[in-house]
């Protein structure tokens, strides 16, 4: 650490105190179950935009994917294109408004509840709730691990204590304040993230002599690309990998498409649309959301790539070598070496804010799914605020246990896996559900199950990055993956999402004479 632990500890305590006070304000405003679940459907546009953005962007996006940009180059800027074009414009304008209108009309309070009411299918709610309760702890555990890994060296607290403290402090304001507290604190944390990333961009450009000078230097470093990466298709940090090469597949299918499209049907983000009072609020949120995401991922990927220039000029090494081969260590190392002490503190708070804002949203989404969509589905008990508090605590405990069981290097992989599964299972049914006049329940159920099953099969038996550590293919078939290159580098979303979409469209067309549903009515 470039700054002393005492200073950092004091500032973290001030930050946590401010977060808890803001969470308390949310708690005081929470009077009904609808307040607790959908923030009273009356959120301010800026709160919606910052909450959506801060939930969307976790530590993984800044540290994990920023490190990937340092390793694989500026091609990751295409993920920013999708983050803004799909994650904000398409999400808010095409899906957000319809989701808000239908959610308000049908009084839906969670994503599975929305699907159930659109399709008039309790089974849909059970399946969607089950997928959330089973898969979201994986992503939550990854966020917990990332947060604990940051707290451990920063505050000098051992890893296990860091993880438990991080889980408990975040859970406090989620449990008591519900979604209003979550969104208020998200907005506060989003503001810190915006300040931190703006300063990071400015100081990085100063360090490398400006964008053009830095990019030119980076272009001239193409000959320094490690042989292992060059053999797999990497041609330099300012150029896309060779078309069809293993690295091209990794960058385009896993990092860009997997995460870029996966954001569309994430339950914790869809719920944000249902917190808006009217469509005006969502229109105004777009204005804030686009620049916010550009300043998060666009800056992280640009700074990550340009960090190679800084490391080479100061130590004669490229970023990945300077970080000892650990992609996740590149951004923290760059901050510590290239930035003034005061910014190290700001950036550390930025990371803590990014982790807490995503974590709080996941706790809320998992807890409400457990109570409203599974245990209490269709029962009066699902409307009890107290029951949801228990649900959030249960899911928090399960996620924390999982975080202790998972390997530390799981962060970026778990993020991509969760987003991929959400897109494959939910996106076609969600898209047709909010737009079709007569959406087919049978088509949606088949699409959801097919998407989830194909995603899992490709993950466990074909995609080497997951198949290898899972070991299921090895145990069943005696080999790491069932197919060879390039299929081992093709992300599950590229296979499972089109299949899920085809199932949805074909069955939807076939059911042209189906009974009208709530949406049509």
């Amino acid at each position, binding site marked *: 650490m470039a700054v002393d632990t005492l200073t950092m500890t004091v500032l973290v305590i001030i930050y946590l105190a401010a977060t808890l006070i803001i969470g308390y304000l949310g708690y005081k405003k929470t009077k009904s179950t609808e307040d607790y679940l959908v923030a009273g459907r009356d959120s301010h546009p800026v709160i919606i935009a910052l909450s959506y953005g801060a939930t969307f962007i976790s530590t993984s996006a800044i540290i994990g994917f920023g490190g990937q940009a340092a390793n694989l180059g500026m091609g990751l800027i295409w993920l920013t294109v999708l983050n803004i074009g799909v994650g904000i414009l398409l999400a808010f304008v095409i899906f957000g408004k319809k989701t808000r209108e*239908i959610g308000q009309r049908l009084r839906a309070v969670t994503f599975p509840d929305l699907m159930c009411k659109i399709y008039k299918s309790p089974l849909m709610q059970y399946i969607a709730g089950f997928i959330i309760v089973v898969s979201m702890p994986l992503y939550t555990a990854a966020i917990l691990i990332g947060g604990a890994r940051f707290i451990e060296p920063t505050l000098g607290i051992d890893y296990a204590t860091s993880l438990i403290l991080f889980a408990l402090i975040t859970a406090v304001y989620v449990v008591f304040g519900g979604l209003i507290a979550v969104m208020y604190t998200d907005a506060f944390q989003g503001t810190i993230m915006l300040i931190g990333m703006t300063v990071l961009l400015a100081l990085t450009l100063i360090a490398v002599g400006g964008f053009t000078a830095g990019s030119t230097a980076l272009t001239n470093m193409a000959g320094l690309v490690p042989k292992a990466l060059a053999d797999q298709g990497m041609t330099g940090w300012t150029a896309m990998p060779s078309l069809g090469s293993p690295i091209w597949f990794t960058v385009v299918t896993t990092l860009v498409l997997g995460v870029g499209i996966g954001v569309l049907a994430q339950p914790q983000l869809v719920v944000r649309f249902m917190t808006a009072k009217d469509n005006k609020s969502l229109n105004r949120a777009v204005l804030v959301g686009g620049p916010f995401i550009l300043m998060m991922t666009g800056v992280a990927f640009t700074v990550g790539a340009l960090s190679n220039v800084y490391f080479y000029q100061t130590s004669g090494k490229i970023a990945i070598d300077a970080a000892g081969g650990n992609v996740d260590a590149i951004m923290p190392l760059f901050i510590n070496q290239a930035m003034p002490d005061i910014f190290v503190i700001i950036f550390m708070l930025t990371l803590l804010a990014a982790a807490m804002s995503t974590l709080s949203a996941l706790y809320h989404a998992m807890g409400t799914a457990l109570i409203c969509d599974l245990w209490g589905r269709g029962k009066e008990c699902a409307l009890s605020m107290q029951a949801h508090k228990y649900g959030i605590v249960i899911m928090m405990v399960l996620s924390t246990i999982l975080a202790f069981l998972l390997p530390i290097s799981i962060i970026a992989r778990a993020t991509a896996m969760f987003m991929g599964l959400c897109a494959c299972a939910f996106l076609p049914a969600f898209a047709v559900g909010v737009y079709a006049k007569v959406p087919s329940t049978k088509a949606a159920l088949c699409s959801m199950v097919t998407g989830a099953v194909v995603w899992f099969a490709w993950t466990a038996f074909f995609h080497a990055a997951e198949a290898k550590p899972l070991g299921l293919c090895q145990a069943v078939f005696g080999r790491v993956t069932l197919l060879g290159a390039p299929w081992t580098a093709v992300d599950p979303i590229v296979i499972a999402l089109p299949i899920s979409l085809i199932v949805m469209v074909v069955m939807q067309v076939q059911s042209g004479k189906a009974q009208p549903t709530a949406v049509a009515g």
Partner: protein
Amino acid sequence: MIFGIPDPQILLGYGLAIGFTLACIVYGLLHWNEENGNGS
């Protein structure tokens, strides 16, 4: 080579990222008071 970047695919990526951001700003301003839904 523009802005020190030789690959037009990277330049296009930066151009689209900034373009979509501007589109978000313009959309928000143009539709600031528009309530075109039927749910309110």
